[in-house]
């Protein structure tokens, strides 16, 4: 935590907007710290950074950060972000969303943003439930988990967020946990640097709702769970499916080079204008 202090007055709307809304033991603030450190390490000007969010605990993040910030409608962060990016491609656009925001109500937008491969970095903070509304199940709630809307146990299978978005066309897909902070700093930095649609799924405890409902212990215990139940992608490559069962795989999960949408669009404009110039004398 000490590492955030030098950045406090540079990147936080420290005097205006704190204290924040997040519960004690929540991991969203850790993700916010990682975003700050990643942006700082890249030396980006605050004026060039555009932070967009939807609705939910994670989506409260933009109000605390001194970038260009846009807190939109539930699920619509990427649709707004697409408009911003196309209208001003110079902006470095980051979308922060929770699991429900990104994958349930915003599921349509995220697969199409990935398909277009538009140069936006999506940070999905996955705490396995809807925290802000009191702990209902989300598309990432594990089977059998108890939430306030699956009181008898979740019977729906969950999304593998990273596999979904990799298949949809994202250029860069990684998974991090808020326990492995230094690793997350690096993954977010890699995602920010990557041209095209990049995704970091950040697993985070929700001790207030998900943890309590499933008797997972306090925030420290849940953090230890992230530590004990996860392996790096490198290590996972050498493990059998049986050994990997129930494990969270961290690190870069897929990366590819593909044409980026705003560049393709600029190319299209040039082509259309060139064709017209040839016709006109």
């Amino acid at each position: 935590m000490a590492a955030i202090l030098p950045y406090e007055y540079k990147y936080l709307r420290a005097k205006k907007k704190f204290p924040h809304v997040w519960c004690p033991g929540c991991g969203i603030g850790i993700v916010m710290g990682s975003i700050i450190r990643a942006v700082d390490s890249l030396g980006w000007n605050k004026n060039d950074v555009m932070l967009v969010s939807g609705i939910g605990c994670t989506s409260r993040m933009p109000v605390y950060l001194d970038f260009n910030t846009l807190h939109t409608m539930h699920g619509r962060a990427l649709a707004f972000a697409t408009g911003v990016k196309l209208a001003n491609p110079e902006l470095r656009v980051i979308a922060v969303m929770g699991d429900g925001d990104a994958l349930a109500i915003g599921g349509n937008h995220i697969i199409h943003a990935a398909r277009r491969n538009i140069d936006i970095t999506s940070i999905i903070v996955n705490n396995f439930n809807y925290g802000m509304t009191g702990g209902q199940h989300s598309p990432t709630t594990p089977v059998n988990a108890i939430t306030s809307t699956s009181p008898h146990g979740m019977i729906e299978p969950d999304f593998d967020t990273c596999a979904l978005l990799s298949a949809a066309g994202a250029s860069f897909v990684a998974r991090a946990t808020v326990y492995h902070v230094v690793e997350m700093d690096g993954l977010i930095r890699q995602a920010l640097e990557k041209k095209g649609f990049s995704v970091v799924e950040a697993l985070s405890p929700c001790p207030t709702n998900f943890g309590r409902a499933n008797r997972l212990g306090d925030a420290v215990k849940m953090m230890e769970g992230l530590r004990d139940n996860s392996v790096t992608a490198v290590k996972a490559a050498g493990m059998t499916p049986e050994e990997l069962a129930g494990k969270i795989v961290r690190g870069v999960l897929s990366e590819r080079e593909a044409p980026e949408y705003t560049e393709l669009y600029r190319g299209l404009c040039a082509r259309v204008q060139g064709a017209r110039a040839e016709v006109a004398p």
Partner: protein
Amino acid sequence: MIPWGETRLVQGNEAIALGALASGVRFFGGYPITPSTEVAEILARKLPEVDGVFIQMEDEIASISSVMGASLAGARAMTATSGPGFSLMQEGLGYGCLAEIPFVLVNVMRAGPSTGLPTQVSQGDVMQARWGTHGDHPVIALCPAGVRECFDMTIRAFNLSEEFRTPVLLLSDEVIGHMRERVTFPRREDVRILDRPIPQTPKEWYEHYHPTPSNVSPMASYGSGYRFHVTGLTHDRQGFPTRRIDEVVEKMARLKNKIVRRLDELIEVKTHNVEKSRVVIFAYGSVYRSALAAQVMLEKKHKKVGVFRPVTLWPFPDREVKELLDEKDVIIVPELNQGQLIHEVERLTSDCVRILPVQRVDGYAITPEQIVQAALEVM
């Protein structure tokens, strides 16, 4: 790109696309839906020629969201839709009203509810335009009745949206959208294009919702060096969420007052022989054309009727209706719905005025003969 000063045969939706280009539109985010699709198709062809962006989004919710993102980044932005698409855009419309984002939303009305009669004519969305999004909010809606008007009114819609920093609705209908007419375009020098007010304050003093006498705050764009926060939460002058009663009341009052204190600039009505007639037809959109034809047919039968047309549907021309129609014997209100603006007319006129509905919801236009028949019954 715009046939300034020339005469052409043009379709209503095409005129909207040309009006948008004349206004300097630089972003269109949309989703295909008849009978509005021509607007998207024409802009898909033309916008790349001027380095503007056309994007077909994954649905109407994404469309209106992308339009608001683009507008906040400084682009003149619009979308066009119909029927179910307009319903899907309602939450976004409310966001645009609260966050005070300029953009134009064209709704080429078709018959509903639900998928309804794709894609026959209707005026079923007039009240949805006013009250469709949740919460209490102001709205501006204009209603064209001809192809040249589609061109002019799109320009006016952009001007109002930028000047008032709010979404503006253009409520066309299927008949107007698909009708072709001979249009003589204005000369470029006769068209006025207005831009949003730009902040003059130093960046560190900037407030995205700074109070002004007009209630419209100067607006910076993302990426301009002014860093600001925009949210759908009720917010203070800087744009940060607030629950403080004084700040909430100030915000809500400003949203209302920026519209209702400038009605003279917003309200437009057209009247034909209203003052000299005891019987007046109140009509808008494509129905207004039938009303004008009915007026001529009745005149041949030596029956004098007036025609009153609200061009601005919202805010509703309360004062004009009260002043011009409250003393009449009969007001005939033909509408392509089961009674929407007729209730506004009733609200503003005394009980002695007979209000006669002529309504049609079968997907076909109201004919002049229908209006004539109704008039003859009471004259």
